[in-house]
Protein backbone atom coordinates (compact mmCIF):
# COMPACT_ATOMS: atom_id res chain seq x y z
CA UNK A 1 0.00 0.00 0.00
CA UNK A 2 1.35 3.32 -0.98
CA UNK A 3 1.81 5.87 1.76
CA UNK A 4 3.13 9.38 1.73
CA UNK A 5 6.29 8.08 3.38
CA UNK A 6 6.88 5.64 0.59
CA UNK A 7 9.16 7.37 -1.85
CA UNK A 8 10.59 4.24 -3.46
CA UNK A 9 8.35 3.56 -6.42
CA UNK A 10 10.53 0.83 -7.83
CA UNK A 11 7.48 -0.63 -9.58
CA UNK A 12 7.13 2.55 -11.61
CA UNK A 13 9.46 3.61 -14.36
CA UNK A 14 9.32 6.12 -17.18
CA UNK A 15 7.48 3.70 -19.42
CA UNK A 16 4.77 3.13 -16.87
CA UNK A 17 3.61 6.69 -17.29
CA UNK A 18 1.90 8.65 -14.58
CA UNK A 19 0.02 6.62 -12.02
CA UNK A 20 -3.01 8.38 -10.72
CA UNK A 21 -5.08 6.70 -8.10
CA UNK A 22 -8.54 7.55 -9.30
CA UNK A 23 -7.84 5.97 -12.67
CA UNK A 24 -7.61 2.59 -10.96
CA UNK A 25 -11.41 2.77 -11.14
CA UNK A 26 -11.24 2.99 -14.89
CA UNK A 27 -8.59 0.34 -15.40
CA UNK A 28 -6.12 3.03 -16.35
CA UNK A 29 -8.24 4.29 -19.22
CA UNK A 30 -8.35 8.01 -19.68
CA UNK A 31 -10.04 10.58 -21.84
CA UNK A 32 -12.31 8.64 -24.14
CA UNK A 33 -14.07 11.03 -26.46
CA UNK A 34 -13.97 14.28 -24.57
CA UNK A 35 -16.13 15.48 -27.45
CA UNK A 36 -18.86 13.02 -26.50
CA UNK A 37 -19.17 14.37 -23.00
CA UNK A 38 -18.55 18.07 -23.01
CA UNK A 39 -18.88 19.83 -19.67
CA UNK A 40 -22.29 21.18 -20.69
CA UNK A 41 -23.57 17.98 -22.34
CA UNK A 42 -26.66 16.69 -20.57
CA UNK A 43 -26.98 13.03 -19.68
CA UNK A 44 -29.72 11.03 -17.98
CA UNK A 45 -29.94 7.48 -16.65
CA UNK A 46 -31.88 5.23 -18.99
CA UNK A 47 -35.00 3.47 -17.69
CA UNK A 48 -33.94 0.16 -16.14
CA UNK A 49 -35.69 -1.84 -18.85
CA UNK A 50 -33.52 -0.32 -21.56
CA UNK A 51 -30.23 -1.38 -20.03
CA UNK A 52 -28.57 -4.27 -21.73
CA UNK A 53 -26.18 -5.66 -19.20
CA UNK A 54 -26.03 -4.10 -15.77
CA UNK A 55 -24.09 -6.91 -14.14
CA UNK A 56 -20.73 -5.42 -15.09
CA UNK A 57 -21.40 -2.10 -13.44
CA UNK A 58 -19.01 -1.08 -10.68
CA UNK A 59 -20.13 0.90 -7.64
CA UNK A 60 -18.71 4.00 -9.33
CA UNK A 61 -20.97 3.43 -12.32
CA UNK A 62 -23.95 3.09 -10.03
CA UNK A 63 -22.99 6.31 -8.27
CA UNK A 64 -23.04 8.09 -11.63
CA UNK A 65 -26.49 6.67 -12.42
CA UNK A 66 -27.78 7.75 -9.01
CA UNK A 67 -26.81 11.34 -9.74
CA UNK A 68 -28.27 11.21 -13.25
CA UNK A 69 -31.84 10.25 -12.42
CA UNK A 70 -32.86 13.59 -13.84
CA UNK A 71 -31.08 15.19 -16.81
CA UNK A 72 -27.86 16.74 -15.56
CA UNK A 73 -24.86 18.40 -17.17
CA UNK A 74 -21.56 16.54 -17.13
CA UNK A 75 -20.04 19.39 -15.10
CA UNK A 76 -22.67 19.16 -12.35
CA UNK A 77 -22.57 15.38 -12.40
CA UNK A 78 -18.80 15.49 -11.92
CA UNK A 79 -19.10 17.95 -9.08
CA UNK A 80 -21.76 15.94 -7.27
CA UNK A 81 -20.19 12.54 -7.80
CA UNK A 82 -16.87 13.85 -6.48
CA UNK A 83 -14.77 12.05 -9.11
CA UNK A 84 -12.35 13.75 -11.46
CA UNK A 85 -13.84 14.80 -14.79
CA UNK A 86 -11.65 12.40 -16.75
CA UNK A 87 -12.90 9.52 -14.62
CA UNK A 88 -16.52 10.53 -15.03
CA UNK A 89 -16.08 10.55 -18.78
CA UNK A 90 -14.72 7.01 -18.77
CA UNK A 91 -17.59 5.85 -16.58
CA UNK A 92 -20.13 7.62 -18.81
CA UNK A 93 -18.65 6.02 -21.91
CA UNK A 94 -19.04 2.60 -20.25
CA UNK A 95 -22.62 3.41 -19.32
CA UNK A 96 -23.38 4.61 -22.83
CA UNK A 97 -22.08 1.29 -24.18
CA UNK A 98 -24.30 -0.56 -21.73
CA UNK A 99 -27.30 1.47 -22.77
CA UNK A 100 -27.57 2.61 -19.17
CA UNK A 101 -27.19 6.30 -19.84
CA UNK A 102 -28.62 8.55 -22.52
CA UNK A 103 -26.68 11.45 -23.95
CA UNK A 104 -29.15 14.22 -24.67
CA UNK A 105 -29.09 16.43 -27.72
CA UNK A 106 -28.03 19.99 -26.88
CA UNK A 107 -30.59 22.73 -27.34
CA UNK A 108 -28.03 24.62 -29.41
CA UNK A 109 -25.46 22.88 -31.57
CA UNK A 110 -21.96 23.20 -30.10
CA UNK A 111 -20.15 26.24 -31.42
CA UNK A 112 -23.37 28.00 -32.41
CA UNK A 113 -24.62 31.16 -30.78
CA UNK A 114 -28.08 30.70 -29.23
CA UNK A 115 -31.03 32.51 -30.78
CA UNK A 116 -31.11 36.20 -29.98
CA UNK A 117 -34.36 35.94 -28.03
CA UNK A 118 -32.61 33.56 -25.63
CA UNK A 119 -29.64 35.91 -25.23
CA UNK A 120 -32.03 38.78 -24.54
CA UNK A 121 -33.84 36.67 -21.94
CA UNK A 122 -30.48 35.86 -20.31
CA UNK A 123 -29.59 39.55 -20.11
CA UNK A 124 -32.93 40.38 -18.49
CA UNK A 125 -32.53 37.41 -16.15
CA UNK A 126 -29.05 38.51 -15.09
CA UNK A 127 -30.30 41.98 -14.30
CA UNK A 128 -33.43 41.03 -12.43
CA UNK A 129 -32.74 37.65 -10.85
Amino acid at each position, binding site marked *: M*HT*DHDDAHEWLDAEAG*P*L*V*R*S*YAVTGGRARPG*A*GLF*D*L*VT*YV*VAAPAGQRRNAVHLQPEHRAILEHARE*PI*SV*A*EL*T*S*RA*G*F*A*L*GVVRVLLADL*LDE*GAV*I*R*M*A*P*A*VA*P*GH*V*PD*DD*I*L*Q*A*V*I*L*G*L*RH*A
Partner: protein
Amino acid sequence: MRDDRARSVPTAIKILVAGGFGAGKTTMVGTVSEILPLHTEEVLTSASAHSDDLSGVEAKRTTTVTMDFGRITIGDSAVLYLFGTPGQDRFWFLWDELAIGALGAVVLADTRRLADSFPSIDYFERRRIPFVVAVNCFHGHQQFEIPAVRNALSLDPDVPVVLTDARDRKSGREVLVTLIEHVRAITLGQAHTVVGTPG
Protein backbone atom coordinates in the same frame (compact mmCIF):
# COMPACT_ATOMS: atom_id res chain seq x y z
CA MET B 1 -25.67 8.41 -31.41
CA ARG B 2 -28.10 7.65 -28.65
CA ASP B 3 -29.26 11.19 -28.40
CA ASP B 4 -32.72 11.50 -27.00
CA ARG B 5 -34.26 14.28 -29.00
CA ALA B 6 -37.69 13.82 -27.49
CA ARG B 7 -36.60 15.30 -24.16
CA SER B 8 -35.66 18.91 -23.99
CA VAL B 9 -32.69 20.31 -22.19
CA PRO B 10 -32.13 23.97 -21.39
CA THR B 11 -29.85 26.02 -23.60
CA ALA B 12 -26.47 25.60 -21.95
CA ILE B 13 -24.29 28.69 -22.31
CA LYS B 14 -20.64 28.23 -21.46
CA ILE B 15 -18.70 31.27 -20.30
CA LEU B 16 -15.06 31.23 -19.27
CA VAL B 17 -13.64 33.43 -16.53
CA ALA B 18 -9.92 33.91 -17.07
CA GLY B 19 -7.14 36.13 -15.80
CA GLY B 20 -3.93 35.91 -13.88
CA PHE B 21 -3.57 34.27 -10.51
CA GLY B 22 -5.18 36.44 -7.86
CA ALA B 23 -7.17 38.56 -10.31
CA GLY B 24 -10.44 37.55 -8.66
CA LYS B 25 -11.70 34.64 -10.77
CA THR B 26 -12.85 32.53 -7.84
CA THR B 27 -14.42 35.55 -6.18
CA MET B 28 -16.34 36.54 -9.27
CA VAL B 29 -17.64 33.05 -10.08
CA GLY B 30 -18.71 32.63 -6.47
CA THR B 31 -20.36 36.03 -6.27
CA VAL B 32 -22.49 35.84 -9.39
CA SER B 33 -23.53 32.20 -9.21
CA GLU B 34 -24.09 29.11 -7.20
CA ILE B 35 -20.58 27.70 -7.07
CA LEU B 36 -19.66 24.05 -7.09
CA PRO B 37 -16.21 22.50 -6.90
CA LEU B 38 -15.22 20.72 -10.08
CA HIS B 39 -12.29 18.33 -10.04
CA THR B 40 -11.03 18.18 -13.57
CA GLU B 41 -8.07 15.85 -13.43
CA GLU B 42 -5.65 14.33 -11.05
CA VAL B 43 -2.16 15.00 -12.21
CA LEU B 44 1.25 14.07 -10.96
CA THR B 45 3.17 16.79 -9.26
CA SER B 46 6.80 16.52 -8.42
CA ALA B 47 7.91 17.48 -4.95
CA SER B 48 9.89 20.40 -6.28
CA ALA B 49 7.13 21.90 -8.41
CA HIS B 50 6.53 25.52 -7.60
CA SER B 51 2.93 26.07 -6.73
CA ASP B 52 1.01 29.20 -5.90
CA ASP B 53 -2.32 28.02 -4.68
CA LEU B 54 -1.46 24.47 -3.78
CA SER B 55 1.04 25.25 -1.05
CA GLY B 56 1.28 22.60 1.59
CA VAL B 57 0.56 19.69 -0.69
CA GLU B 58 3.95 19.50 -2.39
CA ALA B 59 4.77 16.22 -0.72
CA LYS B 60 1.87 14.45 -2.40
CA ARG B 61 2.27 12.47 -5.55
CA THR B 62 -0.95 13.61 -7.15
CA THR B 63 -2.73 16.92 -7.28
CA THR B 64 -6.36 17.38 -8.04
CA VAL B 65 -6.83 20.27 -10.41
CA THR B 66 -9.96 22.01 -9.24
CA MET B 67 -11.71 24.56 -11.36
CA ASP B 68 -14.25 27.07 -10.23
CA PHE B 69 -17.58 26.16 -11.69
CA GLY B 70 -20.72 28.19 -11.29
CA ARG B 71 -24.25 27.93 -12.56
CA ILE B 72 -26.91 30.58 -13.13
CA THR B 73 -30.34 29.31 -14.11
CA ILE B 74 -32.39 31.67 -16.26
CA GLY B 75 -36.01 30.53 -16.08
CA ASP B 76 -36.69 27.18 -17.74
CA SER B 77 -34.92 27.89 -20.96
CA ALA B 78 -31.28 28.66 -20.31
CA VAL B 79 -28.48 27.91 -17.89
CA LEU B 80 -25.23 29.83 -17.78
CA TYR B 81 -22.23 27.73 -16.89
CA LEU B 82 -19.20 29.67 -15.70
CA PHE B 83 -15.80 28.04 -15.63
CA GLY B 84 -12.83 29.67 -13.99
CA THR B 85 -9.77 28.76 -16.00
CA PRO B 86 -6.90 27.22 -14.09
CA GLY B 87 -4.57 30.05 -13.16
CA GLN B 88 -1.35 28.14 -13.28
CA ASP B 89 0.43 28.00 -16.60
CA ARG B 90 1.15 24.32 -16.31
CA PHE B 91 -2.55 23.50 -16.37
CA TRP B 92 -3.20 25.28 -19.64
CA PHE B 93 -3.77 21.95 -21.35
CA LEU B 94 -7.19 22.08 -19.74
CA TRP B 95 -8.10 25.28 -21.52
CA ASP B 96 -8.54 23.96 -25.01
CA GLU B 97 -11.20 21.59 -23.95
CA LEU B 98 -12.88 24.22 -21.81
CA ALA B 99 -12.94 26.63 -24.70
CA ILE B 100 -14.83 24.33 -27.06
CA GLY B 101 -18.28 25.75 -27.64
CA ALA B 102 -17.82 28.66 -25.25
CA LEU B 103 -20.04 31.65 -25.99
CA GLY B 104 -17.34 33.97 -24.73
CA ALA B 105 -14.96 34.86 -21.93
CA VAL B 106 -14.39 37.40 -19.21
CA VAL B 107 -10.74 38.32 -18.68
CA LEU B 108 -10.32 39.71 -15.18
CA ALA B 109 -7.46 42.15 -14.94
CA ASP B 110 -5.68 43.44 -11.87
CA THR B 111 -4.18 46.84 -12.64
CA ARG B 112 -1.23 46.11 -10.37
CA ARG B 113 -0.37 43.14 -12.58
CA LEU B 114 -1.82 43.93 -15.97
CA ALA B 115 0.72 41.77 -17.76
CA ASP B 116 -0.77 38.71 -16.05
CA SER B 117 -3.79 39.02 -18.32
CA PHE B 118 -1.75 38.97 -21.56
CA PRO B 119 -1.79 35.16 -21.91
CA SER B 120 -5.57 35.00 -21.53
CA ILE B 121 -6.11 37.81 -24.04
CA ASP B 122 -3.74 36.20 -26.55
CA TYR B 123 -5.52 32.90 -26.12
CA PHE B 124 -9.01 34.24 -26.85
CA GLU B 125 -7.83 36.49 -29.68
CA ARG B 126 -6.13 33.61 -31.46
CA ARG B 127 -9.19 31.38 -31.17
CA ARG B 128 -11.59 34.19 -32.06
CA ILE B 129 -13.55 33.68 -28.86
CA PRO B 130 -15.42 36.88 -27.95
CA PHE B 131 -14.19 38.35 -24.68
CA VAL B 132 -14.47 41.40 -22.47
CA VAL B 133 -11.84 42.73 -20.10
CA ALA B 134 -13.12 43.46 -16.61
CA VAL B 135 -10.77 45.49 -14.46
CA ASN B 136 -11.23 44.32 -10.92
CA CYS B 137 -11.30 47.30 -8.58
CA PHE B 138 -11.63 45.30 -5.40
CA HIS B 139 -8.87 47.31 -3.80
CA GLY B 140 -11.13 50.33 -3.79
CA HIS B 141 -9.19 52.26 -6.34
CA GLN B 142 -8.02 51.80 -9.86
CA GLN B 143 -4.57 52.85 -10.85
CA PHE B 144 -5.43 53.36 -14.51
CA GLU B 145 -8.28 54.82 -16.47
CA ILE B 146 -10.02 52.52 -18.92
CA PRO B 147 -8.33 54.02 -22.02
CA ALA B 148 -4.95 53.48 -20.39
CA VAL B 149 -5.82 49.84 -19.66
CA ARG B 150 -7.04 49.36 -23.23
CA ASN B 151 -3.83 50.84 -24.51
CA ALA B 152 -1.62 48.85 -22.17
CA LEU B 153 -3.29 45.63 -23.25
CA SER B 154 -3.20 46.56 -26.98
CA LEU B 155 -6.85 45.65 -27.30
CA ASP B 156 -8.86 45.70 -30.47
CA PRO B 157 -11.12 48.79 -30.31
CA ASP B 158 -14.22 46.56 -30.37
CA VAL B 159 -13.30 44.71 -27.18
CA PRO B 160 -15.29 46.10 -24.24
CA VAL B 161 -13.34 47.14 -21.16
CA VAL B 162 -15.32 47.64 -17.97
CA LEU B 163 -14.58 48.25 -14.32
CA THR B 164 -15.97 45.75 -11.86
CA ASP B 165 -15.87 44.72 -8.26
CA ALA B 166 -15.64 40.94 -8.27
CA ARG B 167 -17.13 40.85 -4.77
CA ASP B 168 -20.31 42.56 -5.90
CA ARG B 169 -23.02 40.36 -7.39
CA LYS B 170 -24.69 43.09 -9.41
CA SER B 171 -21.39 44.34 -10.75
CA GLY B 172 -20.26 40.84 -11.71
CA ARG B 173 -23.53 40.07 -13.44
CA GLU B 174 -23.31 43.33 -15.37
CA VAL B 175 -19.93 42.13 -16.70
CA LEU B 176 -21.71 39.03 -18.01
CA VAL B 177 -24.34 41.28 -19.59
CA THR B 178 -21.56 43.26 -21.28
CA LEU B 179 -20.12 40.04 -22.66
CA ILE B 180 -23.47 38.82 -23.99
CA GLU B 181 -24.15 42.21 -25.59
CA HIS B 182 -20.69 42.01 -27.17
CA VAL B 183 -21.53 38.56 -28.58
CA ARG B 184 -24.88 39.89 -29.86
CA ALA B 185 -23.13 42.83 -31.52
CA ILE B 186 -20.73 40.44 -33.29
CA THR B 187 -23.53 38.08 -34.31
CA LEU B 188 -26.12 40.64 -35.33
CA GLY B 189 -23.86 43.38 -36.68
CA GLN B 190 -25.85 46.46 -37.63
CA ALA B 191 -29.12 44.92 -36.44
CA HIS B 192 -27.87 44.86 -32.84
CA THR B 193 -29.90 46.84 -30.37
CA VAL B 194 -28.78 46.81 -26.76
CA VAL B 195 -31.35 45.19 -24.48
CA GLY B 196 -33.05 47.69 -22.18
CA THR B 197 -32.46 50.77 -24.31
CA PRO B 198 -35.02 52.37 -26.62
CA GLY B 199 -34.90 51.56 -30.31
